[in-house]
């Protein structure tokens, strides 16, 4: 036997559907309007190359192995395609020269490492 349910309504969503017709869109019309990013957004990793001491802790803490630090050549490089924006390197950096910046990196046609020259101060 089907249980009798007294509180059954027909067209229960009609009012909200009509209301939605006259509401402004919930979405932002990007790219015509700029996207707004919150302060903590983990968009991409940024390096202040002047402060980097090339300790390699970021390279060791990086789960996908996207960061490479070469003390001999004085190069800090990151493969943006491998990076998962986990912020692990930022937390590991003793000099606080790494930070997560808002906004995503641009799409590329080829996988390439982004290289930064580090350890210039020590050479002088």
């Amino acid at each position: 036997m089907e249980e009798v349910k007294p509180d059954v309504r027909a067209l229960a969503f009609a009012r909200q559907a009509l209301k939605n017709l006259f509401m402004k869109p919930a979405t932002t019309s990007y790219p015509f309007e700029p996207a707004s990013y919150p302060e903590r957004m983990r968009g991409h990793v940024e390096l202040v190359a002047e402060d980097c001491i090339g300790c390699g802790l970021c390279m060791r803490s990086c789960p996908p192995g996207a960061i490479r630090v070469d003390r001999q050549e004085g190069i800090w490089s990151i493969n943006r395609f491998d990076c998962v924006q986990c912020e692990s390197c930022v937390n590991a950096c003793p000099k606080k020269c790494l930070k997560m910046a808002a906004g995503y990196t641009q799409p590329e046609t080829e996988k390439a490492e982004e290289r930064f020259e580090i350890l210039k101060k020590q050479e002088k």
Partner: protein
Amino acid sequence: MAKRSIVPFGPQHPVLPEPVHLDLVLEDETVVGAIPSIGFIHRGLEKLVEKKDFKQYVYIAERVCGICSCGHGMGYCESVERVMGIEIPRRAEYLRTIWVEMSRVHSHLLWLGLLADAMGFESLFMECWRLREKILDMFDRTTGGRIIFSVNCVGGVLKDMDGAMLRAIRETVDQMEQELEPIMTTFIKDYSVQLRLRGLGILSREQAILQGAVGPMLRGSGVEYDTRMLGYAAYGDLDMEPIVGTDGDAYARCEVRAREIVQSFNLIREAIDKIPQGPISVPVKGNPQGEYFMRIEQPRGEAIYYTKGNGTKFLDRFRLRTPTTSNIPPMVEMLKGCQLGDVPLLILTIDPCISCTER
């Protein structure tokens, strides 16, 4: 006598982009049996625990699933912390609880939207997902990510929430509760929704227990069981009772999930009121030695995390049993007797996440 035939269903099917395959045994249009098979998107994430150290593995554990990522990170961290005998600060436990409950709201709203879409109720689907955006924005503001939060670490959490953030969450939750009201009314009381869901895919209480159903699937069949009652994280301090359905049909499962959103709102508010001040993490020294079996309640149901450490920084074994793994046998059971046209909707009512299941 009805003609018996086998119809392959999936891995590409009209429900949602989760590759599950079923061989449906039909008598005319009625399903008399179903043979499930998975294995299309195995990623070998458990094996990676041998190559990544136990602190790095948190980032892999939370990538097991895109919807319950915070819960997976938390479950892994809690199991490792218990192996190592680490007691994390209370504030960290509260922060984890708030984020996990926000994940539950996000997961259930996503599922309700998918259900509305499967019923052909497009405007309701849009409304659910519009509302879900608000909670995703709060994730973005508090953790820096919309889906993958990367806030859990062994020993606590990596990010704190200041008073302004907690107030913003509370205001968002209050506003969402008001906006959820027409959605709730539609799912619970609308005639066309009831016509589509009532009496469909009935899973009896006995069968739910026998087949090992978990989460809203189990509670929809009238079993009062919720892993959160064990009191892990901050749940021991919070006032909650499992939301239970009665009929065990698709409608009951929908109702349980819809009511759980309101329950999560209440838990978030209570946690914000009770959150203590203090540190958010403790330093972790040494490596895990021993094993632990951790259970937590994910939005889809009970998830199990088994961790075995050998005293080095690489764990011996990490085993994760996701809720969908447990819900596949009851799904096969409830499919028996239904019509072929109802199969997509019934598969959806278990809230399948095959990517989690295969890890």
